[in-house]
């Protein structure tokens, strides 16, 4: 793998709560190449948001955090973000300057008391160190590029004066203001109307080409995945259970959880009057979880005695396609040796 931008290895974020240890992110590994878009899918509560927050070192202070997050800047040596001081100088340079983030709720993501302009120029002035006027000009230009009408007037408006779509555009403008090499988008269109959603997605794709950046796209919406990304990581209970390119995901899903997810998408054109399939049961509470595969209680192909004992590791089961399920002999094989030592996640 060449030209890697971000390499996440065995990232763990555990939250010690009153009720027990919450393994929000439990050893995930993936890599993002330059200019590439990767999707991170999963149900709510599977740990995807916590995962990207950990990458930015924005997880809560009390979280236990381990693993490696190697970031390769355009110029200079690779840096392991996991080793940085979470409040230090370097991580603040990276945040916003090299890796930017946009969030699900465009309403709450902006401070309601400050103008849009104030909040955008603030980021520009932190990273590009320009004077007020120059920053103002850059911000107006950006607002125009994300398709906002009358950008100079928008600058002095407050968030509540904008529509949801406009706010999300402003958010994108703010994220792109320092020309980051990676944009992390945490369900940016979930709270928007479908038509607005389509516009925002199109905008992001256009801007990706224009800025030449990578995108890490987090969503629970498989439809958005199909339109936006090249590679997909499926997350379940803090782990990646399948990793592949977007076509293989939809046509040759390997993990039973992924297959179930895909079956639950309503399809246009099919004449059947069958009920839409849903996945049995609910996501188990990830606190003090029993050993074994997290999907075991809901799985239709589970092997009792194996799946409920040892956690299946994520192993390559086809070219460019990894899954963590014992129905594939490769997985059982890989699990065997380390399993004896009590280790779940080898590769």
């Amino acid at each position: 793998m060449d030209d890697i931008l971000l390499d996440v290895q065995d990232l763990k974020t555990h939250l010690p709560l009153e009720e027990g240890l919450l393994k929000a992110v439990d050893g995930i590994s993936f890599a993002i190449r330059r200019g590439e878009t990767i999707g991170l899918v999963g149900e709510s509560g599977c740990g995807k948001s916590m995962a990207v927050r950990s990458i930015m070192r924005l997880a809560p202070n009390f979280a236990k955090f381990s693993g490696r997050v190697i970031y390769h800047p355009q110029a200079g040596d690779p840096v392991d973000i996991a080793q940085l001081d979470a409040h230090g100088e370097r991580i603040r340079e990276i945040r916003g300057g090299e890796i930017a983030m946009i969030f699900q709720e465009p309403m709450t993501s902006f401070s309601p008391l400050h103008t849009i302009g104030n909040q955008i120029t603030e980021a520009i002035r932190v990273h590009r160190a320009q004077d007020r006027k120059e920053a103002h000009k850059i911000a107006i230009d950006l607002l125009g590029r994300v398709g906002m009408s009358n950008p100079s007037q928008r600058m002095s408006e407050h968030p509540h004066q904008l529509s949801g779509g406009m706010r999300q555009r402003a958010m994108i403008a703010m994220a792109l203001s320092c020309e980051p090499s990676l944009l992390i988008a945490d369900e940016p269109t979930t709270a928007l109307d479908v038509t607005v959603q389509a516009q925002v997605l199109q905008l992001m794709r256009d801007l990706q080409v224009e800025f030449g950046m990578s995108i890490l796209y987090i969503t629970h919406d498989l439809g958005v995945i199909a339109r936006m990304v090249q590679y997909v990581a499926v997350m379940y209970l803090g782990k990646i259970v399948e990793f592949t390119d977007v076509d293989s995901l939809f046509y040759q899903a390997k993990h039973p959880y992924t297959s179930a997810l895909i079956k639950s998408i309503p399809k246009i054109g099919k004449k059947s009057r069958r009920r839409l399939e849903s996945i049995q049961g609910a996501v188990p509470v990830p606190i003090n979880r029993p050993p074994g595969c997290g999907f075991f209680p809901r799985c239709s192909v589970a092997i009792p005695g194996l799946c409920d004992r040892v956690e299946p590791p994520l192993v390559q089961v086809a070219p460019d396609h990894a899954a963590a399920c014992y129905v594939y002999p490769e997985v059982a094989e890989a699990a065997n040796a380390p399993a004896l030592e009590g280790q779940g996640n080898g590769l």
Partner: protein
Amino acid sequence: MLNYLLRRLLYMAIVLFLVSILSFYIINLPPGSWIQNYASELEASGDIVDQEELDFLNMRYGLDLPLHEQYFRWVVPLITKGDFGQSFEWGQPVWPLIEERLFLTMTISIASILFVYAVSVPIALYSAINQYSIGDYFFSFMGLIGLATPNFLIALVFMIIMLRVFGVTPGGLFSPEYLREPWSLAKFWDMLTHLPVPVIVVGTAGTASLIRILRAQLLDEFQKQYVLTARSKGLRERFLIVKYPLRMAFNPIVSSIGSLLPQIVSGSAIVSIVLGLPTTGPLLLRSLIAQDTYAAASMLLMLSVLTVLGVFLSDMLLMWLDPRIRYERAN
């Protein structure tokens, strides 16, 4: 905007009008009147009660009129001439009697509010940033004690400490040499040096409750998405806390003036009684017991004017601070 202001002022006028009626009636509800109290007091001390004098007083103050007529006798000159009427007990006009006391009440209240903010904002900020630290627990505990101790008890304890440690009896707002002097810069300065004790005593409960409110508010704000956004922009933690959550938390602080002010005015009344301060509190207590209607009603009304005005000002400040409220009110 202007529309809102006018509505607000009209509302204030209505509130004050209702207060005037309410206080006048409440004061007159107990059986008997000032004249009867006066008569029975004379009788008790063995003096001869001059029926003619009583009749004259009754007529002069209109105490034999129906209550609503008495009310109008008080309120009409008040509105038309700014005349608060006569105090029965002191036999002189009410306004000069309460003028200086009102001013002092206001001074203590404002100083107490400033004290409350000056102390509670930094402590709340510290406690919220260092949640569950030893300092946080310490301040929380102190706050709890401050909240649980009646004002007058704090005043008493203060006085005892002063008496025991320094051998001085605190109390009053002026040194003896200024007591009967007219106002001057020196007298004002003398008053300022006497302010800290009453201000601390009056402000303690308010400080404790504001720390609690503000700490919770800040902790709440820290969880908000926009703080995460600000962090993800790479802002310095200190800078962003002041710019966003603290600024947000200022809204409830400012609007808390509305609840803080009545509390402070109440507190200063009782503390003044204990510390012997020449504010409205002790005089009001005396007038209420003596049924000195005009004096008591005037003071209740003026105290309400103070609080209503304070709430109005805090509302204006809030509008200036929060664009959302401005926006809402403009439409």
